[in-house]
């Protein structure tokens, strides 16, 4: 299921970025085809994406495009964990490319937890999550001065409720672009 979604997303990405020709300054970053391949996406989708990369990259319009990876700005975590899943890594790579291509863009990474356990521990865990996301963004070419990380711990749940459905929505990091 995830793989299918990823393939679809990558194909969409390829089409979209193929149309976007205005952006420069992406020469030094890895081509999307390599990124895609690393996450196990079929090569034909990857090839299309690769073709698109030369033409440029993401634009701010992609943030509002449901078909773009940039429209995914919430990263979810397992209980008591700050590990970035492969799916989330793919999304973050897209954000890194966008940030790297647009050094003027600023993003805030907000770390959150579910309500279980100590509030003060959760504040620290939220920071871990925000920092983990920040690290992936930096590794993929974003600059430190573009990213601010902040933790809200369990204080700002996305969904109310004391059940796994709510908890899984609340264990998250949100990318908030300042625009």
């Amino acid at each position, binding site marked *: 299921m995830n793989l299918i979604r990823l393939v679809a997303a990558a194909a969409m990405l390829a089409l979209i970025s193929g149309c976007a020709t205005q952006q420069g300054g992406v020469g030094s970053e890895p081509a999307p085809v390599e990124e895609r391949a690393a996450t196990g996406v079929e090569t034909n989708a990857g090839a299309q994406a690769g073709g698109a990369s030369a033409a440029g990259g993401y634009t701010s319009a992609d943030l509002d495009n449901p078909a773009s990876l940039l429209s995914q700005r919430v990263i979810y975590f397992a209980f008591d964990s700050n590990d970035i899943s492969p799916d989330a890594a793919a999304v973050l790579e897209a954000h890194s490319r966008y940030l790297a291509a647009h050094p003027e863009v600023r993003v805030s990474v907000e770390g959150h937890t579910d*309500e*279980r*356990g100590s*509030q003060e*521990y959760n*504040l620290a865990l939220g*920071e871990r999550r925000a920092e983990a996301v920040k690290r992936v963004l930096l590794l993929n070419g974003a600059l430190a001065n573009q990213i601010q990380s902040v933790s809200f711990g369990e*204080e*700002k749940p996305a969904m109310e409720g*004391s059940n796994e459905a709510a908890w899984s929505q609340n264990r998250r990091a949100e990318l908030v672009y300042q625009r």
Partner: protein
Amino acid sequence: MLKQSPTRLFALLLLAALTLTGRAAAQPITIEITGASEAAIPIAVVPFRVAGNSAPPSQDVAGIITNNLRRSGQFEPIATSDMLSRPSRLDEVQFPQWRALGVDNLVIGSIQPLAGGDYQLRFELLDVYKGSRLLEKTYRVSANSLRDLGHNISDLIYQAITGQPGAFNTKVLYVTEFKEAGKRKYQLIHADADGERPQALLTSNEPIMSPAWSANRQQVAYVSFEGGRAEVWTQPVYTAQRPVPRRKVAAFPGLNSAPAWAPDGRRLALTLSKDGNPDIYVLDLDTGRLTQVTRHWSIDTSPVWTPDGRSIIFMSERAGGAQIYRVPASGGEAQRLTFTGRYNADPAISPDGKQLAMVHRTERGDQIAVMDLETQQLRVLTQGPLDGGPSFAPNGSMLVYGRGGGGRLATVSLYGRADQPLALTHGAARSPAWSPR
């Protein structure tokens, strides 16, 4: 609610109704009783006689006393409906009647309105088996001091019978979250130890966390997100100055959280992640000087001082899961204190330094447990599954905690295990902190 007699329920509802007329800012909306006490002392608090034909005062003092004594877990007040008579003076008491009811002690009294709106209140504490008087006192108070007087008398009764000082005339701080016009709001609430008379010390559109009392009860420290992230503030609890002279004391890069006042009132222990990882520091509030207490790659947080001010007890996940440790306040090697269970957090230390309360995770979820630091014996006190943030009463006999994750607070007694919700304001309450005496 199940085990309670209708009269007691009525008394509580009456208490709730009375307090609804009290304060405009933040009103109690719920009082319920679920706890059962074991081996509690049976006592009868007879409703105080109102002298003459005057209207009863706005505060039911005998009801306040009854509620306090029950909450302590050490007493089991009988229902007023079970009382065969309602004496107000020693010479009116038929002791055999009360012995037949199995009551050890009897509280009686009267209240008389005076010119100018004050009241004269007299009470007696009697030993039913000896047929003797243990206490008799008369007070003159203003109408808005009646509730304080109820707490004072509760303390006197508690001490006369148990030999230990009471903790009823104390306060709690907690944070409440509610929606106003569709937007989340947060308030730092100051209330009586039974939850009544709530007042907001701070109202914010952003979260507030971890309120902590200074040892002299004059200052509070807390975490506020009003600056967009966690920063530590202090403010006086009682001040007529407007705006309230608040002070932002820690706004380093990263987390600024979990403040805890040193017994000397001049320093705060707190958690900072300015060097990339949450560690415990001590901040001198006069000089701004910062001393690092722990230095570990794991999460260290939730510091509390031992009463002698020499050590700091904190939570760390350095052994994998969250466990509780002790470290010299000047820094040094940390000693692990908890070994039962894979998750122990939110440490609180009793005023005598002998008991460690914590959130203890079992298959039933997060429950409040207390460990005797000498014997290492751990006792689970609450039901879970989402209990949090225990804080000791200043006499060490009770804890206030966040119950069940539903935004409600409760007190639980260390002995007798009375487990009772606090009267709460609107919204979801968390992070309770019981005041020093």
